[in-house]
């Protein structure tokens, strides 16, 4: 176990040591007895006991298939599953619970929108149409749009990045035009940490009649989201996130879409649950949300995700945001003490999420991560599924530390110390 941090920072979650007790994995030791310092939360978050318990209780006492089962267990399972939807709707401030679609992860949610836009319907994308993304997207928000544009003959365009890792909006008027049918971008970059101007971009896209898809995979864990409070012209048409990054389970993601959009999109996957009636010749489809949920959904996972977003709301997303912000500022200061270290992305904690990618002259990211791992510190090394953003900065890979609500300043200290040690290990001093 980590010794309780001596250090406290303005803005940290109150009772941080108590919060840490909610996460059983943080008691683990690694690398032959060292306390685990988990700084890979942008990759996946750890799970509090209440999420695990909710799933176990479901599996041990209420497991049944949903909707179609009319017996007691079936009614309980249906209520638990749909209760998960209600909680996610509340978490997002969604105008309607029916606008919350469960997918298997954020990637499927993005593919759902991109794939169905290729099908016949009022929003069908075709030759001459343009889809606009950005150079800082996760591969999951690039490849689906490449596939859509390749398959339909539409054109893919993108915003470039400034040297300090923000969107380069200087050519926005050339990029967002009447030809633009979709604008899709990440709310918070998983590599650079940049927080993008959702309201502004959405307003501009809506002015030309384009739909806006926002990848909130990194935003949902750390920023309060309130869709209902957004001005309609600044509210995206679709927002996606993934369960495992918001202290929830794997196997579940969320697509929120406005009713207007979801009703216009044709169905994605066909099968049980998403139909109204089926004849061999033809089928008709159920209304949303079921229209987009073919087959047995991730039931225990929806129960776990419901518990997860409730856990975050209980802590308070504003407080989580403040915590992340305090740690990010502290980490940026600490990293600046490491010779030869360059941060990729904005250098001020303001307007920045909690993922910090960096390079160290003379040591490859894998080697950094390996030496840190031997000290019990888990960071990510590689391209973080953001190859184009790495290419933009002329690097092939980077090391990324990402904190979360359970991270302590002492863990940041351990990282910084570990980086100094890494340099000396590779004889760079």
């Amino acid at each position, binding site marked *: 176990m980590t010794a309780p941090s001596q250090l406290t920072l303005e803005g940290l979650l109150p009772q941080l040591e108590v919060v840490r007790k909610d996460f059983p994995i943080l008691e683990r030791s690694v690398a032959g007895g060292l306390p685990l310092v988990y700084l890979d939360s942008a990759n996946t978050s750890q799970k509090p006991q209440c999420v695990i318990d909710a799933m176990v209780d479901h599996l041990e006492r209420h497991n049944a298939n949903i*909707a*179609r089962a009319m017996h007691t267990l*079936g009614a309980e399972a*249906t209520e638990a599953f749909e209760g998960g939807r209600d909680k996610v709707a509340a978490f997002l401030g969604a105008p309607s619970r029916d606008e919350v679609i469960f997918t298997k992860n954020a990637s499927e949610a993005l593919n759902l929108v991109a794939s169905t836009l290729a099908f016949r319907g009022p929003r069908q994308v075709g030759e001459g149409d343009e889809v606009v993304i950005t150079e800082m997207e996760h591969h999951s928000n690039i490849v689906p749009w490449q596939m859509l544009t390749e398959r339909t003959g539409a054109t893919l365009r993108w915003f470039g990045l400034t040297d300090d890792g923000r969107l380069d909006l200087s050519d926005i008027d050339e990029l967002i035009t009447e030809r633009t049918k979709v604008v899709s971008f990440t709310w918070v970059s998983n590599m650079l940490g940049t927080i993008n101007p959702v309201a502004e971009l959405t307003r501009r896209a809506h002015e030309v009649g384009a739909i806006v898809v926002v990848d909130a995979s990194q935003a949902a864990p750390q920023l309060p989201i309130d869709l209902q409070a957004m001005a309609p012209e600044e509210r995206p048409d679709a927002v996606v996130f993934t369960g495992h990054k918001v202290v929830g389970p794997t196997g579940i993601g969320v697509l929120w879409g406005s009713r207007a959009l979801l009703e216009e999109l044709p169905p994605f996957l066909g099968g049980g649950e998403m*139909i*109204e*009636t089926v004849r061999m010749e033809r089928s008709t489809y159920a209304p949303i949300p*079921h229209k987009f949920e073919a087959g047995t959904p991730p039931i225990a996972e929806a129960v776990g995700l419901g518990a997860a977003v409730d856990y975050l709301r209980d802590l308070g997303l504003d407080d989580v945001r403040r915590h992340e912000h305090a740690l990010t500022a502290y980490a940026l200061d600490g990293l600046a003490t490491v010779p030869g270290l360059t941060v990729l992305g904005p250098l001020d904690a303001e307007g920045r999420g909690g993922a910090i990618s960096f390079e160290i002259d003379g040591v490859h990211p894998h080697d950094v991560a390996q030496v840190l791992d031997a000290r019990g510190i888990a960071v990510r090394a590689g391209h973080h599924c953001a190859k184009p953003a790495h290419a933009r900065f002329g690097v092939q890979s980077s090391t990324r530390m990402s904190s979360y609500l359970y991270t302590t300043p002492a863990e940041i200290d351990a990282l910084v110390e570990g980086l100094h040690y890494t340099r000396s290990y590779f004889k760079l001093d």
Partner: protein
Amino acid sequence: MNDLDALYQEIILDHYKNPHHAGLRDPFEAEVHHVNPTCGDEVTLRVHVADGTVADVSYDAVGCSISQASASVLTDLVIGKPVEEAMAVHETFLALMQGKGQVEPDEDVLEDGIAFAGVAKFPARVKCALLSWMAWKDATTQSLEAQS
């Protein structure tokens, strides 16, 4: 009375065995077909509105005792009533069904419909009870639109 007997009250079973106003009739302004996708219950329902009054409701329904009896009780309650009043009955029935067993049924408004109070405790069956009521509201709205 246990929950099961509260669900299957005599009144419900009577309507199930001898449904009132069953079958499809002319004249009508709107015909709708509603399905409960989870279980497959179906109803085809016609509404005839004349002079602002629900002049006739006729239907062809396949489904369980609850959904069949509910269609029968619906027709008893709305045929002959001014549309507005019938819509108010609809609201009252809806509130009873969605009340999770906590709403006290108003016999003056719902007549035989109060027998459905027990259904509200069975979430999976509420949809059965509401199938024809939803179809009726849909068809009535369409009838009014067709006339205007």
